[in-house]
């Protein structure tokens, strides 16, 4: 083993994890002239990260400026499709605004985390941060038993590294934060398991199948029994340049009830008649999984502690309200505000929770907590309504559509009336429909 430099007490802050939240914090602090150590347990930044997905990039563009042109994005999001799947049928809505086709493309891009996170961590390094990979943080160091956090234990030789502030950006499987008593473990109803295949195709195959040009991409979101059984969750397809990300993500409390294991559920999703033509062929190049903290605002722990802050997935900063699926943007935003707060604390020479309060306060005023709080009701709502939302509704819609469009010698009016009655019946009659309309109104607010 080569000689290990002594990092103890050499840095103003240690960041645990070079994912998006960690690198955003490291970059922000480095831009504020702090000495930052960025620790990553993987072989390179991004090598332990998994997501769908599309990334929303306003804060990234602010942070890196013109360098964003070199960011390794795959395709911009030009079209978004939502589908309800009964076991055999599909009802979908597709959105393709012309405005999204023009720069900056609604700041929404497909990325692969393997290369995007590496690039983003590089931005922090170029700004002055020190990145060390293949180093796992195993614990925090406290001054005394209940005292402030003053560093981290790692699996490097002479593994203890002390610094005034630790930024915990360790992801959803937040072993260090939990062991340090900084957060309670999430409940299993509030965590989703995602399983995903990345498959390689010819570019033309992807572009033809999804109706795309060279630079635009599509995201497909699938709900209902045909996607995830009766579970709260969904299936997805994202188009990259020459790969597709195909996966399912659903609540762990539902996953343990389904007789199928996640990989079997993924197989069934891929074989759905509406999905199979889009994903057939190709070559499997990676299989991955991730736990997604979806507990909403009520699951967000105290973010500032004496000598430490928690950011990104580790802080449960993920939004899933069925329509908006966001997390990487919240990770970056939280890393940014945490970095700013640490810089202020460093200037004042104070590192206790009070000195770091600017982070939770600014996050509270940002879209991150605004959105999480606005949709905090969704998780319980989806679990309460899952029989209707994921099983009964897709089936009723299919039956009503068949009736509505039926070709025979009866008048259209008769078909329309029958179709309407089918939907009303599925909604629980007029009273049920009125109650549901009231209950569901918040979905689009």
């Amino acid at each position, binding site marked *: 083993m080569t000689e290990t430099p002594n990092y103890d007490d050499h840095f103003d802050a240690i960041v645990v994890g070079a994912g998006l939240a960690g690198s955003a914090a490291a970059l922000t602090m480095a831009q504020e002239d702090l000495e930052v150590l960025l620790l990553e347990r993987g072989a390179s930044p991004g090598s332990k990260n998994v997501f769908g997905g599309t990334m929303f990039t306003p804060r990234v563009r602010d942070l890196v400026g013109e360098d964003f042109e070199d960011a390794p994005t795959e395709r911009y999001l030009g079209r978004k499709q939502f589908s309800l799947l009964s076991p055999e049928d599909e009802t979908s809505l597709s959105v393709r605004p012309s405005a999204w086709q023009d720069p900056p493309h609604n700041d929404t891009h497909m990325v692969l985390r393997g290369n995007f996170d590496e690039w983003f961590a590089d931005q922090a390094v170029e700004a002055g941060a020190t990145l060390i990979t293949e180093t796992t943080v195993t614990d925090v160091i406290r001054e005394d038993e209940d005292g402030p956090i003053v560093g981290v234990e790692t699996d490097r030789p002479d593994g203890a590294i002390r610094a005034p502030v630790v930024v915990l950006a360790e992801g959803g499987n937040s072993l260090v934060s939990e062991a340090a008593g900084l957060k309670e473990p999430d409940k299993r109803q509030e965590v989703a398991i995602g*399983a995903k295949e990345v498959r390689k195709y010819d570019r033309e195959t992807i572009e033809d199948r999804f109706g795309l040009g060279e630079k635009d991409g599509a995201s497909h979101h699938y709900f209902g029994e045909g996607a995830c059984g009766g579970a709260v969750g969904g299936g997805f397809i994202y188009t990259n340049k020459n790969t597709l990300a195909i996966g399912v993500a659903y609540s762990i409390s539902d996953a343990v009830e389904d007789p199928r294991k996640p990989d079997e559920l993924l197989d069934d999703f891929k074989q759905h008649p509406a999905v199979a033509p889009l994903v057939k062929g190709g070559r499997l190049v990676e299989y991955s*999984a991730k736990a997604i903290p979806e507990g909403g605002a009520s699951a967000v722990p105290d973010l500032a502690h004496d000598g430490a802050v928690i950011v990104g997935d580790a802080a449960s900063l993920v939004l899933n309200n069925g329509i908006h699926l966001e997390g990487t943007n919240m990770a970056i935003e939280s890393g940014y505000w945490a970095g700013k707060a640490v810089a202020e604390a460093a200037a004042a020479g104070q590192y206790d929770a009070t000195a770091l309060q600017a982070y939770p306060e600014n996050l509270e005023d940002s879209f991150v907590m605004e959105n999480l709080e606005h949709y905090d009701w969704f998780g319980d709502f989806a679990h309460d309504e899952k029989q209707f939302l994921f099983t009964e509704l897709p089936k009723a819609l299919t039956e009503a559509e068949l009736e509505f469009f039926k070709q025979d010698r009866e008048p259209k009016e008769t078909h329309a009336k029958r179709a309407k009655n089918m939907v009303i019946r599925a909604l629980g009659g007029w009273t049920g429909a009125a109650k549901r309309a009231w209950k569901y109104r918040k979905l689009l607010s």
Partner: protein
Amino acid sequence: MSTPKTPDVETPSIEDRLYTNKYTDHEESHLGVFEEQTCLDCETYDCVSVCPANVWRDEGDGDVPFIAYENCLECGSCRWACPYDNVIWENPPNGTGMTYRYG
């Protein structure tokens, strides 16, 4: 009249799926259980049900599940799935375990 057939899609086995991934063994399991008796008393094996990579295996003998740690995708789902908080989970050391190239 027959409907047009849904095209065949590949449904690889867990082994074939894992074969595509880059993995570095760390020889000692990063997973375990705190109390064996808890597993012996458990009837649901939720760790087995939720695992996307067949790491946790119910061998049908009512014993502690067999742990094929080298299959682990490092999602952590077993930690939440276990109703008894009985899963020991440590991050694989020094860059070992899964290395995702796409992510």
